């Protein structure tokens, strides 16, 4: 049966809501570019059954109230049924009630601290069991179990630090030496006292949940203090290629990040996507884990649309749940029961080239467990393969 109504021939309008300015704009811009690149690819290949995807883009300026207001605007004025966006948990939490109130759909391409499920959200970043568990395992096995926690002052670091602390404390001889927070708009001086404390406490490793522009300040303060990543590295879930480009490659070298995607991934899909990105946006964009999630989720949306009568949540959700896509990180799948995504945990060590050397890698996708129902260290099913 052919669908030939006027409406179904017009473009599919979607809302795109990232932060192009403000403290998290480096990641925000990369997420926007991942989104736009995928839209370009989809439209270039004939759109969704001939229909173009038309992004309506706003800059949320790293401000949660602005996220909420713009989401409302996108839904009520621009009449979109689907929004792609958000980075910090506070921005997702600001948009969530708006999305639920109007029964719309949000694609959220960011790792976060878990403990959430909404019928109206598809989560394409890592849940804690897809990055924290592997990082705790790797760091404690290779460096020791005396950990020093530093984070930005908001909910994601509180909860992430708590999860990391709980995981590390399962190790014999483990110790949580401190849990320190700096403002989201921290200044370099905010790290001085922390570096002095680290010097006197001598942890085995530092776990950082600092996000945004202050990430570079932390790593710079570490370098200036003369610490050695070989014996006391910083481990993170959010320090990606984008943050590294802000701090300087030499400053980042030797530190570890746990993520399902690194730019250095040697796969056909990844090389292709990166080449197309460079052609479209030049070298200004710094691809990272959130860029990749933003990129593949748009393709998953387009694929679901090809099997759907329309873009309303009730029509498209059944097509999305359980769907798979050959993403740059590997073949991902949206879990039907919790709306999070099956991903490939990896551990990368930052090199002097600004890229990550992948030192551990999951061969099979890891099922998302946002409520951390199982999270024991030493569980061999969670163990990653060593990369030689």
């Amino acid at each position, binding site marked *: 049966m052919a669908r030939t109504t006027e409406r179904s021939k017009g473009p599919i309008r979607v809302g795109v809501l990232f932060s192009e300015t403000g403290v998290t704009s480096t990641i925000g811009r990369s997420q926007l570019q991942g989104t736009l690149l995928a839209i370009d690819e989809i439209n270039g290949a004939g759109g969704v059954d001939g229909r173009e995807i038309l992004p309506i883009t706003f800059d949320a300026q790293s401000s949660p109230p602005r996220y909420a207001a713009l989401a409302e605007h996108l839904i009520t004025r621009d009449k979109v049924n689907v929004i792609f966006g958000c980075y910090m*948990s506070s921005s997702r939490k600001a948009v969530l009630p708006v999305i*639920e109130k109007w029964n719309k759909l949000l694609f959220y391409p960011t790792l976060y601290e878990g403990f959430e499920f909404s019928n109206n959200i598809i989560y394409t970043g890592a849940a804690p069991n897809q990055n924290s568990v592997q990082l705790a395992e790797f760091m404690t096995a290779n460096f020791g179990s005396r950990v020093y926690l530093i984070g930005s002052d908001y909910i994601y670091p509180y909860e992430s630090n708590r999860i990391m602390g709980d995981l590390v404390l399962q190790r014999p001889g483990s110790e949580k030496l401190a849990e320190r927070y700096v403002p989201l708009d921290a200044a370099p001086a905010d790290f001085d006292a922390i570096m002095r404390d680290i010097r006197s406490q001598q942890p085995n490793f530092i776990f950082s949940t600092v996000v945004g522009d202050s990430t570079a300040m932390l790593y710079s303060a570490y370098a200036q203090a003369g610490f050695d990543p070989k014996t006391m590295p910083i481990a993170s879930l959010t320090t990606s290629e984008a943050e590294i480009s802000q701090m300087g490659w030499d400053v980042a070298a030797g530190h570890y990040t746990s993520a399902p995607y690194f730019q250095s991934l040697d796969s056909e899909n990844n090389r292709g996507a990166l080449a197309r990105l460079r052609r479209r946006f030049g070298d200004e964009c710094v691809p990272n884990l959130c860029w990749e999630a933003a990129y593949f989720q748009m393709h998953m949306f387009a694929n679901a649309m090809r099997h759907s009568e329309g873009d309303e949540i009730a029509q498209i959700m059944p097509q999305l749940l359980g769907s798979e896509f050959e993403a740059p990180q590997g073949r991902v799948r949206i879990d039907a029961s919790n709306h999070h995504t099956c991903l490939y945990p990896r551990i990368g060590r930052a090199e002097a080239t600004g890229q990550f050397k992948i030192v551990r890698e999951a061969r099979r996708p890891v099922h998302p467990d946002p409520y951390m129902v199982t999270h024991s260290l030493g569980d061999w099913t969670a163990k990653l393969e060593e990369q030689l």
Partner: protein
Amino acid sequence: MLRVAVLHPDDADGRQLTQQLQRIGCQVQAFWPPVPTLPEGTDVVFLAVQPEITQLEFEWSKSENAPTCIAVVTYENPTIVETVLRLKAKAVLPAPVRSFGLLSALVIARTVNSEIQCQSRRVRKLESKLAGARQIVEAKNILMRTRKVSEGQAYDLIREQAMSKRATTEDIAGAIINANEILSMGVVSAAPKGEDP
């Protein structure tokens, strides 16, 4: 009229909350950031348990006759849940706040709070009663030992004293124990302690 303090930012949820409370007949005052002391006579506190307040201490939540606390939560992760428990909240209201469900949460929380207060008063009373009974046994033993009287006579002595001094038998028993301790100072180790098994 129920006096309710709403510790919540002045936003859509905060207004929804105060308006619905007013509709159901509560006297509402709203504050944000949270005030350290509550208005005199506050019966119920609605507290927005937001990430930035998880480190705060709320003295009012610790007092014996603390007002009923209802937590308004946006996140459901362990950090927030732990704060809700620490505040001894008796009900949780999820945000975004809907007017429906607020009344039930309020009634349940108030009932649970008064039951807990009632029970802890009862427990305290029973504990002191139990302690008193133990003291009477000890005082009887002292009298039996020093006066060479039977248990019944020892108890009669205590009760007579209580009646003439217009005190409770527990008070008299306490006084006897004290006096005995003072009088046997220095000979404690020599005194037989027959009453202890």
